[in-house]
């Protein structure tokens, strides 16, 4: 490296002082999560803090997790994808319809993932190359995917004997380790988590995605192929939605044209919760994991506490706003 040599000036070294606001900003949400866990533990000492229950929770959030982790990738770029929920529904229906036509599991899985990638490609193309806003684009494709799911299925739920036993069992079984069984869905979600983390944090691709999210124009002028990478981010979230749709169909051993629709809002909420844990307010897949766990633990614990499901909704929404508010307050207080 033949960098021109000039008189070296020692950079001024400053110790970064410990700051409560900074610390709270990064760990506030995590602490909140631990407090929630502690409350449930104290209230349901025998049933909540058990291995079985936690394995249940991980299985329950596994599908949301896969959607949220891949949604994180899109949100890193500064976009978001509203179509993941109906895409998950659609992929379930595609797999179910193939099962009805006596196709093997492998074909259904590959076709489902291809559909997800194609959907992501369409979203990415419209957003990145045509220049329609991500909100409008994915709102539109959300409706289209939902309509396609209803159309292909004729509005009916596909279930029963047409679903291959192996496919239905996958979502119910797991890796047996002595007395405990780690659900397959949990393992799958874990794999997606590790993969997403690796992509975002350890690859050049991920670094460029963060740069685009931080400043699109500056990234473009610095030689980042912004349009192509934005498109790829949507492909990732489409793939994630497809994987989630397959997991959902496996878990329910059925495919309903609406069964994935609710994933989208929760996934976005989880990413936002995770964003409260990063210094610059960037999406972060480990933060998203905490967000997903918060949502999962709240639903699990509040149900065990016999709390009315409508109150559950109010509490969940309140906690999301609380976390984001605290985070932005501590940011401002800096």
């Amino acid at each position, binding site marked *: 490296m033949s960098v021109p040599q000039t008189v070296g000036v020692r950079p001024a070294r400053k110790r970064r002082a410990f700051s409560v606001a900074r610390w709270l900003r990064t760990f506030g949400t995590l602490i909140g999560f631990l407090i929630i866990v502690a409350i449930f533990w104290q209230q349901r000492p025998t049933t909540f803090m058990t291995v079985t229950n936690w394995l249940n929770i991980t299985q329950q959030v596994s599908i949301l997790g896969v959607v949220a982790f891949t949604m994180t990738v899109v949100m890193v770029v500064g976009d978001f994808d509203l179509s993941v929920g109906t895409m998950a529904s659609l992929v379930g229906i595609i797999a179910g319809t193939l099962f009805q036509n006596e196709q093997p599991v492998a074909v259904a899985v590959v076709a489902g993932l291809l559909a997800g990638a194609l959907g992501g490609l369409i979203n990415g193309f419209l957003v990145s190359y045509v220049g329609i806003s991500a909100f409008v684009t994915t709102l539109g494709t959300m409706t289209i995917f939902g309509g396609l799911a209803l159309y292909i299925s004729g509005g009916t739920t596909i279930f029963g004997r047409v679903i291959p036993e192996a496919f239905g069992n996958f979502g119910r079984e797991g890796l047996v380790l002595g007395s405990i069984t780690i659900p397959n869905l949990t393992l799958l979600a874990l794999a997606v988590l590790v993969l997403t983390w690796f992509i975002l944090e350890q690859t050049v691709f991920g670094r460029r995605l963060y740069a685009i999210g931080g400043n699109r124009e500056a990234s473009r002028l610095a*030689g980042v192929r912004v349009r192509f990478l934005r498109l790829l981010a949507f492909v990732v979230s489409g793939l994630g939605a497809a994987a989630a749709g397959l997991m959902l169909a496996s878990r329910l051993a059925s495919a309903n044209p609406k069964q994935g629709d609710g994933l989208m809002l929760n996934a976005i909420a989880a990413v936002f919760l995770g964003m409260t844990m990063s210094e610059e307010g960037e999406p972060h897949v480990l933060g998203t994991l905490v967000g997903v766990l918060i949502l999962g633990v709240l639903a699990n614990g509040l149900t065990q506490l016999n709390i009315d499901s409508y109150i559950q909704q109010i509490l969940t929404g309140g906690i999301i706003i609380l976390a984001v508010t605290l985070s932005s307050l501590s940011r401002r207080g800096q």
Partner: protein
Amino acid sequence: MNSLSAVSSGPVYTTMTTAVDPSPGTVLLAVRHASKSYNGVPALTDASLELRAGEVHALMGENGAGKSTLIKLLAGVLAPDRIEVEIQGRPATLHSPQAAYGHGLRFIHQELNIVPQLSVAENVFLGQRYPAWFGTLVRWRTLNRRARDVLAMLGVHHIDPSERMARLSPGDQMLVSIARAFAGDDSDNGSRALVYVMDEPTAALTGHEVDLLFEVINGLKARGSAVLYVSHRMEEIFRISDRITVMRDGRVVGTRHAADTHPGELIRLMTGRTLQQVYPPRQTPVGERMRLTVRNLRSHAVRADAFDLREGEIVGVAGLNGSGRTELLRALVGADRRLSGEILLDGRRVSLTPAMAWRNGVAFVPEERRSQGLVLSRSVADNITLPGLAWLSRGGMLIDRGLERRTSRSLGDTVQLKMIGPDQTVRELSGGNQQKAVFARALTRTTRVLLLLDEPTRGVDVGAKVDLYRLIRELSGQGAAILMVSSDLPELIGMTDRILIMRQGVLVDEVPTAGLTEESLLSLCYGETAHERSTDGGR
């Protein structure tokens, strides 16, 4: 104190500063022993400054010398560790922006703080109560008339108050934000400011607009106000100021009468070292090999029929604001869409996009570092390595943090970037250091074919400027061709071998730098407009 609290709670118009019309030479504002540290790191140490009625007082210093901190203390946006302030001989406290305003201090900031979606008039009176019917329905015509009056006070007549801010040129936007500082001086209520603090007001202005501003400043002097004028531009400072205070490392190192000093002394005070020459002379001759050949380049904004750059050559691009200098670089690098154009790098025909440009050894330093240059939310290392990730990683795929940090550190040292470390967020750097980070990025590639620099030293302190100039020289010495847009005419004359002249989006002329003076260069920039006017008249 009573009047002070009345000021901070009541409407901003009621000020106590109007009673006295100070005679020239009296001390309007005295600051003593101003100190401020952040997390134990001193930013300002025992700084003292006096502003007298009817003077323009320049404040100079490198980035991080403490100028901004001092100004923030005066503006009441930072709490001092220690300070003594006297306004017209009476002790005063500047604990809030309202208090500063009430004491007659007005601030014109470096970064444009305007709202692009609003009209000129709305921006001029932003933060004040707009004239309105029943307190709710804004009386637009009255508002526009008042804005026009304020602009007229500045001698600005060409800006329509109802125009949307976003449609104005950067220079005009600056004039409006200056007008905002004067908006409080409404003759109806007789309030008047004592001290105007201007932080790099000319950064985005063309020569003509600077002239306009200086006329206004002279008017303020005549009225007995004081102006604290912060700038890096030596020529301006000697043109407008009466006294000059220089800061270094958080301390005031000296105050001089403009008539008794010279640029060399000021630079020595600022940098702590003597400066042989601001612009280092060319060490190696311009090569023969053609590195860049451009033919028939057209975009929606520019037209350039032909120009070439040789190995080791530094070519400037001069022109007025809006003449298409920036757009020429953007079209070249593919940031704007080219309608046509043949570009040859080392004789090889290329079709450049920003990504292709970096891959071919073309580095681009854009004009606006915050909006176009940096990802403010990311670290210094991330920003420096962004265009070079392909070769600063394992196999172009996996991040190599060690290599990134080493590279950023060494490049940071090369451009004398002051940072806590490569992991520091770029947002936390001062403006000048941010620019250095952008500049450091252009050095990541070992094979440098062409550097496209758009205002490479804007907002950079003198010491760093010199370093950048030396760096540019060394790069050219290694064979890179350099195309440099600048509105700093001495810089163009001092650094370049040839200068391309842009007028109204067209490359109209190309002149050797030898023998050029600022005046002759400026008249080249203006020339064609006069000429075109005459041809228009002939039609």
